[in-house]
C-alpha cells in the first residue's frame, strides 16, 4: 500500500477514473460554469456572524448550549467549540491519533472537502477551513461533534457536512473515520 498524499496523485486518480467511467460526460461539460468558480462566491457565509452570537459553547453533550448558537474558543483543539470546528460533523482527528491537520496512522486523507468560514476569537480574524475527512477506517468515536455554523443544505454540497467527504481517498474507501480542520484562506 503506497502512501501518496499529494493532491497530484489523488486528483490524477480521480481524473483518470472519471475519464474512464464517464466518457464524454466531463464535469464541466455537464454542469457548465454553474458550479465552478465565481458564481459560487457570493454564497459563502463570510459575514463574521460568529462574533455577534450571544450564545455558548456547542457540544453534543450539552444541547442547551448547542442550541443557543456558536461561540468559539481558541484554547482547546479537542473540544467541540474550538473555533476551527465551527462546521464539523463527526470526530476530531486530534483525538483519534491525528492532529488538526494530519490524519491518524493507517487512514487515507481525502483530497475532497467541504468548507466553512470560522471566526477565530484569538486574533479576531475569519478563516476559511477546508474540512478534510480521513477515510478507510471505522468511525473513530472520540470527540464526536456536530457543529453547523454556516452549514448549508445538501443541494449546496460544498458547504454540507452531512456528506461522507471521502471522494478520491485511497482505494476509494468511502468510509468515515475523522475530520481535520486545516486553514486554507483568510477573509480579506
Amino acid at each position, binding site marked *: 500500500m503506497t502512501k501518496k498524499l499529494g493532491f497530484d496523485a489523488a486528483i490524477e486518480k*480521480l481524473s483518470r*477514473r*472519471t475519464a474512464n*467511467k*464517464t466518457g464524454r*460526460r466531463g*464535469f464541466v461539460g*455537464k*454542469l457548465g460554469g*454553474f*458550479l465552478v468558480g465565481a458564481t459560487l462566491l457570493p*454564497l459563502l457565509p463570510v459575514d463574521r*456572524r460568529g462574533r455577534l*452570537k*450571544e*450564545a455558548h459553547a*456547542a457540544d*453534543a453533550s450539552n*444541547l442547551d448550549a*448547542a*442550541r*443557543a*448558537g*456558536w461561540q468559539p474558543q481558541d484554547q482547546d483543539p479537542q473540544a467541540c467549540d474550538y473555533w476551527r470546528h465551527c462546521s464539523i*460533523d*463527526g470526530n476530531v482527528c486530534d483525538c483519534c491519533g491525528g492532529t488538526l491537520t494530519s490524519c491518524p496512522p493507517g487512514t487515507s486523507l481525502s483530497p475532497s472537502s467541504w468548507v466553512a468560514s470560522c471566526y477565530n476569537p484569538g486574533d479576531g480574524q475569519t478563516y476559511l477551513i477546508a474540512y478534510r475527512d480521513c477515510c*478507510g*477506517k*471505522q*468511525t473513530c468515536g472520540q470527540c*464526536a461533534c*456536530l457543529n*453547523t*455554523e*454556516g*452549514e*448549508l*443544505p*445538501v*443541494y*449546496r*454540497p460544498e458547504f*454540507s457536512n*452531512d*456528506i*461522507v467527504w*471521502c*471522494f478520491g481517498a485511497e*482505494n*476509494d*474507501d*468511502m*468510509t*468515515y*473515520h475523522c475530520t481535520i480542520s486545516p486553514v486554507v484562506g483568510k477573509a480579506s
Partner: protein
Amino acid sequence: MTLFNLKSKLRQQGVVGGLAAAAMMTAAYPAFADIPVEKMTLEVAPPSDSKRVYVTDPGHFQMTSQVFTIDGNNNKILGMSDAGKLPHVLLGDKGNFMAIANTWYDRIARGNRDDYIEVFDTQTHDVTADIDIPEGRFLTAVFTHMATLSTDDKHMMFQQFSPVPAVGLVDLEQNQFVKMMDTPDCYHLFPAPEQNVYMHCRDGSMLRINYDDEGNSTQTHSKVFHPEDSYLVNEPYYSDVTNRLVWPDYEGRIYQAKLTADGAEFMEPIEVFTEEEKADRWRPGGWQLVTVHNDTNELYLLADQRGEFTHKTPSRYVFVIDADTGERLRKMELNHEIDSIAVTQDDKPYLFALSANEQTLYTFDAKTGKKIGETAGLGRYPHILTLPQDSE
C-alpha cells in the same frame, strides 16, 4: 422431536458433528426428570398497520446499522433488520415489504465495496430479494428522500453524486438493476404517478424526470420556487399518496408543492412563526423535523428557541398548523430533546418522537399531546423514522 430423542437418533446415524454436537447432546441429561421439553419456535410479526414504525440507527456514520420494527400501538419491539453503512429504508405495499439500500466493504471499512438492495417481508423479516446495484450510492448522513420507491412500488431509485450525478433505477418486479440515469446538479427523489420522479436542484427549481422501464428519461425543470438565501432543510415531508411536498427552511417558512405527472404546482409559502416568535428566536431544528397528517392537513414542525445555524440541534416543542392556511392549531411540549418526528395516517393519529441522544422513541397522542409510551435502548444514535404512508 425432543432433545431426549436426539441422542439416540444421532447414535443410530453412527456419526455425530464434533464437539458442538457433543455439547448439545449433554442437554439430554438423565439425572433430570423427563418432563416435556418446551416447544421452541420462531416469531412472525403481526401484519403492518398504520401505527407501525421503523427506527433506523445508522450510528454516526458507522459501518453497521440496525432497523427496529416497532408496534406503535404499544411500543413493543417486533424485530430487527440489519443494514450496512448509511442505509436507506423504504416501505412499500402498505408496509408489507421493506427495501433497504446497503453499502458494505469486505475488509470492515476498506477493501471491495458492495452496494445492494435487500427486500424484506415485514412479518417474517425474511429477505425475499437481494439485488445487486452499482457501487454508486451517495453516502451522506441518512437523508430519507435520497432513495425512493415509485408510487406503484414497481421501481426503486437511489441517488449517485460521484463521479457524475445520476439516479439509479431498480426494477423490483424483475429484481434487477436497470440503469444509471444521468441528471444535473439536483438532489432528493420524490416519486409521482406514471413513472415520474422529482428532484430539487441547486438553483431552487424542481426537476421532473419521466422514465421508462429501460431507464430512458426526459427531464423538465420547474420555475425557481425559493430564493437562494432561504435554505431548505435536508428532510422535507413528502407523501407518496397525496404527492404533496412540504419543505421548511431554516427560519420556519414552509414551501409546498403538489408533484404530478404533469408538473409541480406550488402553493404560497406560509410562515409557522409569528413575528413576535421570530424575535424570540423560535426556529425549526432537528433531523426529520416536519410531518403532515394527510387527511386533516395538520402540519407538525419540531422547533425551539435557538440561535441561527443550529438547524440540526434537537428541539423540545412541536408547532401544529393548518398546512393550507398556516393557522396555528396548537403547540406541544415534548419534554425531551427530539431529533425526528412522524405522525401516523390513521384517524386517531400518534406522533412518534425520536431522541438520538437518549436512544429512545416516545409516542404521543397527536391530538392531545399526551405521552402514551416509549421504547428505549434503540442502538447508538437512532434518528430515522419510517412509517407506512399508504396505510389506512
